């Protein structure tokens, strides 16, 4: 049994201007200790997918269909209090996008780290502080940081604090949503090194969400490529980068300039991603796809296993 199993997940936002189908039929599987990268462009539903896994979708959004199983427990059918006592932070936790800038300015780092420990365990204040100290050292910070306020920290230090906070209850899965986006490359590399180290030492599963194709390769054994609310390709990182199948994945990889090798003319994808209130029928990438066929505009392509462990949702590979 997989640690995390997501089937046909749909999460919609019911806005005044229409229903935003932000996550629309996502399937995923993650084993214990695996690292999964989710890449996709702005607005494709990456954060919404992550919020869904923690059952923290903000209104006006909600999970409308599908199941999420963590350790065999069906989270979708659990009450909020059950999720709180059994799942959230204990089984699965998250480093939220932009969280380093959302630390509470009036509490010290230490107070913010022990709060969830006191809330969710029967540890005493002293024990919780010890735990906080262990964590702050694990993320490479000196213990005196615990007495400081967020505004006294650099960007990189704040991000380390946020990572420590995701680890307080020793979760099996940590989701990191754009953990390095606002950081400079040197600090980004330090944070990614830290995440690699924590993964090796603690063996938890990591879901790394990013729009950056370079960043995703730093950590991910498996990669899911997301486009307009759907996963369009999934496989081992090597398969995705060396033999991409989906025309979107192929174009995306050829759209980024490289640091090494010959300079090739970059490709770009004409047009822009669809409005998720009104996605095109059939394949959502069809209006921008170079290899579009008649059927693509009419019918949604099913996700198929094209090679062992390498899945793609595209009519170039599916049998009609």
């Amino acid at each position, binding site marked *: 049994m997989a640690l995390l199993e997501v089937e046909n997940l749909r999460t919609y936002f019911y806005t005044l201007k229409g229903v935003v189908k932000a996550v629309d039929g996502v399937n995923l599987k993650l084993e214990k200790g695996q*690292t999964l990268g989710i890449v996709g*462009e*702005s607005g494709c539903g990456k954060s919404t997918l992550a919020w869904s896994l923690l059952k923290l979708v903000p209104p006006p959004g909600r999970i409308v269909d599908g199941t999420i199983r963590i350790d065999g427990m069906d989270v979708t059918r659990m009450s909020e209090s059950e999720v709180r006592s059994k799942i959230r932070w204990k089984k699965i936790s998250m480093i939220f996008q932009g969280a380093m800038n959302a630390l509470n300015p009036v509490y010290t780092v230490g107070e913010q780290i022990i709060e969830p420990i006191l809330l969710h365990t029967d540890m005493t204040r002293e024990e919780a502080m010890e735990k906080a100290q262990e964590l702050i050292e694990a993320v490479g910070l000196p213990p005196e940081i615990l007495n400081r306020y967020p505004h006294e920290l*650099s960007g*990189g230090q704040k991000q380390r604090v946020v990572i420590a906070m995701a680890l307080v209850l020793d979760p099996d899965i940590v989701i990191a949503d754009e953990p390095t986006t606002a950081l*400079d*490359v*040197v*600090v*980004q*590399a*330090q944070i*990614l*090194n830290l995440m*690699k*180290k924590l993964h090796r030492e603690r063996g938890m599963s990591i879901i790394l969400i990013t*729009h*950056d*194709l*370079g*960043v*995703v*390769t*730093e*950590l*991910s*054994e498996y990669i899911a490529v997301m486009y307009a609310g759907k996963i369009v390709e999934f496989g*081992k*990182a*090597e398969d*995705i*980068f*060396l033999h991409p199948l989906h025309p979107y994945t192929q*174009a*995306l*990889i050829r*759209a*980024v*300039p*490289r*640091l*090494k090798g010959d*300079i090739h*003319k*970059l*490709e*770009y*994808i*004409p047009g*822009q*991603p669809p409005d998720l209130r009104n996605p095109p029928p059939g394949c959502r990438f069809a209006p921008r796809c170079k290899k579009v066929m008649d059927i693509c505009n009419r019918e949604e392509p099913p996700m198929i296993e094209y090679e062992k462990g390498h899945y793609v949702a595209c009519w170039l590979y599916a049998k009609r």
Partner: protein
Amino acid sequence: MYRVELGEEILKVKDLRVWFPLKRGIIGTILRKPPLYVHAVDGVSFNIRKREIFCLVGESGCGKTTTGKALLRLVPIYSGEAWFKPRKETLAKLEAMGVTPNENGMVEILHLPEKKFKPLRRDIQMIYQDPYGSLNPRFRIKDILEEVLIVHKIGESKEERLDLIERVLEMVKLTPPSEFINRFPHQLSGGQRQRVAIARAIIANPALIIADEPVSMLDVSIRAEILEVLLNLRTLLDASYIFITHDLAVARYICDRIAVMYLGKIVEVGDAREVIADPLHPYTEALIAAIPDPDPENRKKFRDLKIKGEVPNAVFIPPGCRFHPRCVYYDEMKEVDKELGDLCPSTEPPLVEVKPGRYVACYKYPLVRSLVKTGVLSPGREGR
């Protein structure tokens, strides 16, 4: 593959400094403490040739945007000069106002009175970092573009101006123009908005375009198209670019030369591909080692970061080489190589051409040392 023939020099920046005074507070004022400054740009020199794409790269806060804004005089200049070669019509206007160019047809632009600088605003244009904030949301696209034409008195009639606007929209591939001219910025995608910002910058036929992170806010799938538009425009307009980016892979793709900035100073300049394939300055080396180029092998190893600590505050610049507190080379060599151990923390290294076309400000290179020791170059100055 994108190399083009470069022309004569059109811009020479010499020892530019932009310092922002720090608010002292009441106590500081009463005690008459000396004023403190943010040394945003702290002695920057570079030259740009016609049709050249010159990149300023470096981490957040190193002074890239401020350097660009200084050339448009949008920030207070502390010291330094910038000599610019205006287009013919602009030069004629300046001469009529009593400005005399030097023997190369260049004019010093940082110290001209504002009235005399005004004609130059047509020749030097900037594309701003943020495609969302930089366009007036209440103006239609055609009004945004027409405004530039009116300010610079380009086009005799409304029809002529409209014709120009349509031609420019075609250049930036917003086609057919009729579909876009009446829209408001919010009715465009991020990529389209950035193309309007480019259209606004080029419509007056500038000689120098300062493009500040023009693709950073855009999705990967549309970035390449914008880069292509910019590349095509340089030959079409015969213009040069200062291209500001923190993305070295983008810099390598689009630029002729790269200047790497650290804490308000250029520490290395050279051919874009050479600098990235073979960085000379320890900082450049660390920066390049930190960049994750997409490769599934990356996850199997830790990144070897040859740099210590964090970027210091731009108020209190470290003495000597401003990089020395973070420099791993200095750390490893300071005991072995006494001379280096003395120079790095005490004397600012000048930017010296250590190989043809390759400039670096670092005492790792014997030429830099000997020029300073013999007093040929004063510390922190340029070796050219």
